[in-house]
């Protein structure tokens, strides 16, 4: 069963890479925030799986819980920060710099 958990964790790492692609090329800032939130959820699951792989689940589950809390707070803070800001749209900063020049 441990090798099954290792394969599941490797597949989740592959999904993290795919979500990171959207985080890099995402047109708006909000796409990047969703991508980071999805990566955080997957990381929580990977940490819980690692606890069962190394048979230290009581320690790793605390880390997973802390990571889930931090992920939630970071997402809420980013959503509050980017509310009512025009810089959320793609290319907004570029147009502003072009207008300055």
């Amino acid at each position, binding site marked *: 069963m441990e090798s099954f958990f290792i394969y*599941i964790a490797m597949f989740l790492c592959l999904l993290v890479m795919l979500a990171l692609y959207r985080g890099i090329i995402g047109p708006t800032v909000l796409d990047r925030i969703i991508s980071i939130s999805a990566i955080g959820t997957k990381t929580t699951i990977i940490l819980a799986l690692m606890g069962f792989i190394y048979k230290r689940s*009581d320690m790793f*589950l605390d880390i997973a819980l802390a990571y889930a809390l931090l992920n939630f707070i970071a*997402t809420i803070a980013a959503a*509050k920060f980017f509310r009512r800001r025009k810089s959320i749209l793609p290319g907004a900063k570029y147009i502003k710099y072009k207008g300055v020049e």
Partner: protein
Amino acid sequence: MSVLAAILIVTGVFFFTTATIGLLRFPDFYTRMHATGKGDTLGAFLILTGLALYNLHHGFSVDAILVSIKVMFIALFIFIANPTATHAITKAGLDCNVKPWEKKETSR
């Protein structure tokens, strides 16, 4: 119980995969949010439930029950927190006037 846990974990991984494909393929911010907000929540809940069931397959000792309760706490927290975060991000996008995607009219 171990087989049931494996079935739950594989189902959760399937939901994670569909959520990630939706995050990559959908055309708009709102549709991407729709894909990843629900798929990730259900996938995380299923995988953590499977882990909590797998933890009990040696027998119902006090330590195993406590670890399973902790896993289910994480699952419950993700089940509450992830839709809240999704709602907050969508509200931020709506306040910034991000245009929803519309299907282009085909010229005949």
